[in-house]
């Protein structure tokens, strides 16, 4: 074990990084050091982000836009400055293409609703089709089920291969001339699979369908370039990338944001209102009704600063090395079955598995008693569990502060679990 660990190169200086995260000092169950391996559910928040949040409330808090007093101007500059930071982070052609939402789920619902109320050529109605995949998070399934129930559109999806990849063998039958939108996850939160964007985008473009990419598990972990992806919309969420809860992002191509109708109506999203009719502000404001999550956007901006300072390339490499090590070590555990790709290639740093017929709830609970936090259940991707005939999985997921020693602790913990229920 130590031998394998010593051979690892390309890791970040986690000792320094971990000092920025107060919660990682937390002791649980009296005296156990927390081993936090639940990063696909939510990430922890560094001091640098917390400081920015505190400073926002202690120095600059005001409602944004249109204020002529100092605080309002400062808060607006901070909020809009955060938009600039996010735009740069994802290489958006324009800052006005970055919409702040409350989470990735709202971002995904926003697109589904835009298309439901859109005019031609975007309108989703009973003569059209919507394509998703069997590995989507519920937040990228249910909005499309609702849309298809409400418009009569047909919902189709790509199935999965036995080794946890998209089955694209019949891509030309799934994505057709009737397809209005293809929405899929860049990196699966349950399988870890990283999907072949290019092939899907190419086919979608062939038939003139829009593409929405759920990058919730990608934006935190690798360089993200919305122009290189070639998609029309990209959604992600702040709390998984060192940011606060309560903030999500939808990036969309400018022409589309101009053409598509608004979703939530209210203050901030209007140009002018009379009782009889209203006109809407240009994007992104058109899609940001009401007082936005101001401090949360500012906090997400600080998170992006933090990530940039370390370097997304380096973070991706760190996680890749960890994932390879984890896959190797997990293979040593008898009766452990990885659900999803069982190598470190083309996958993210979330690894789901089953352990004999010990129920994941029991695995998770016993690990918790050792201070090891993993997630158990269907991970909001129940169709994947159905597909592989399992009720649930245990999932360990890593981030920039995760260490090989934590993976060793996990493996030791799993041995303990086996003995405990053996």
């Amino acid at each position: 074990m130590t031998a394998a660990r010593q051979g690892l190169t390309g890791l970040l200086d986690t000792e320094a990084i971990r000092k920025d995260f107060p919660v990682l000092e937390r002791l649980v169950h009296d005296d156990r050091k927390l081993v936090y391996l639940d990063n696909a559910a939510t990430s922890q928040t560094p001091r640098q982000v917390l400081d920015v949040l505190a400073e926002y409330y202690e120095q600059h808090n005001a409602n944004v836009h249109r204020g002529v007093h100092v605080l309002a101007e400062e808060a607006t500059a901070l909020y809009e400055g955060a938009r600039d930071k996010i735009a740069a982070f994802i290489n958006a052609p324009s800052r006005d293409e970055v919409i702040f939402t409350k989470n990735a789920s709202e971002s995904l619902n926003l697109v589904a609703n835009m298309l439901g109320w859109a005019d031609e050529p975007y309108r989703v109605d009973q003569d059209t089709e919507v394509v998703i995949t069997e590995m989507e998070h519920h937040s990228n399934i249910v909005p499309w089920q609702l849309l298809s129930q409400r418009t009569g559109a047909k919902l189709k999806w790509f199935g999965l291969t036995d080794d946890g990849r998209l089955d694209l063998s019949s891509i030309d039958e799934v994505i057709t001339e009737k397809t209005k939108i293809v929405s899929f996850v860049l990196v699966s939160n349950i399988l870890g699979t990283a999907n072949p964007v290019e092939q899907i985008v190419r086919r979608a473009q062939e038939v003139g369908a829009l593409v929405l990419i759920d990058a919730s598990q990608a934006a935190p972990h690798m360089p993200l370039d919305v122009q290189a992806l070639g998609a029309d919309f990209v959604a992600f969420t702040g709390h998984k990338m060192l940011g606060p809860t309560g903030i999500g992002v939808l990036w969309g191509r400018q022409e589309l944001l101009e053409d598509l109708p608004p979703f939530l109506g209210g203050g901030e999203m209007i140009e002018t209102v009379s009782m009889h009719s209203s006109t809407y502000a240009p994007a992104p404001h058109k899609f940001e009704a009401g007082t936005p999550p101001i401090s949360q956007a500012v906090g997400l901006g600080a998170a992006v600063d933090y990530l940039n300072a370390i370097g997304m390339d380096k973070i991706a490499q760190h996680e890749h090395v960890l994932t390879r090590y984890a896959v190797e070590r997990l293979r040593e555990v008898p009766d452990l079955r990885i659900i999803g790709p069982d190598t470190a290639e083309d996958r993210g740093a979330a690894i789901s598995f089953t352990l004999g017929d010990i129920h994941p709830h029991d695995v998770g609970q016993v690990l918790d008693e050792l201070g090891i936090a993993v997630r158990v259940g269907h991970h909001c991707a129940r169709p994947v569990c159905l597909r592989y005939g399992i009720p649930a999985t245990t999932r360990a997921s890593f981030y920039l502060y995760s260490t090989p020693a934590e993976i060793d602790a996990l493996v030791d913990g799993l041995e303990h679990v086996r003995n405990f229920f053996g």
Partner: protein
Amino acid sequence: MYQDVILDHYKNPHGRGLRDGDAEVHHVNPTCGDEITLRVKYEGERIADVSYEGQGCSISQASASVLNDLLVGKDLAEAQKIQGLFLELMQSKGRIEPDDAMEEALEDAVAFAGVSKYPARVKCALLSWMAWKDATAQAFAEEAKTA
């Protein structure tokens, strides 16, 4: 939370398997995928058998085994009292320290007191009990119809 009593029942479940019954129900805990199929057999007001098949975590499995131990042979009224007491214990958020009277009534089931501190697991412990309650209601509804 994992008392030896619970682990014992999990590893060696009592009365597991489906046998003849007056009513059958299938309950699922959607958040974790725990499932149980449960049958009740009454002789008049007396519980002649509770048989079950299921899959799930140790807590849900052990709880079904304990239920079988506790309820088979009891009268309905008594069984309902026990069920009520167990429900109360499980909803106590760890605040009830079982006393002698409770231990006498619940026997092995008092071992689940610790589970009540874990909101995510309370439903597991209650799965078979809710299924039993439901099956019993159905059995007597059937009887009322045929009577």
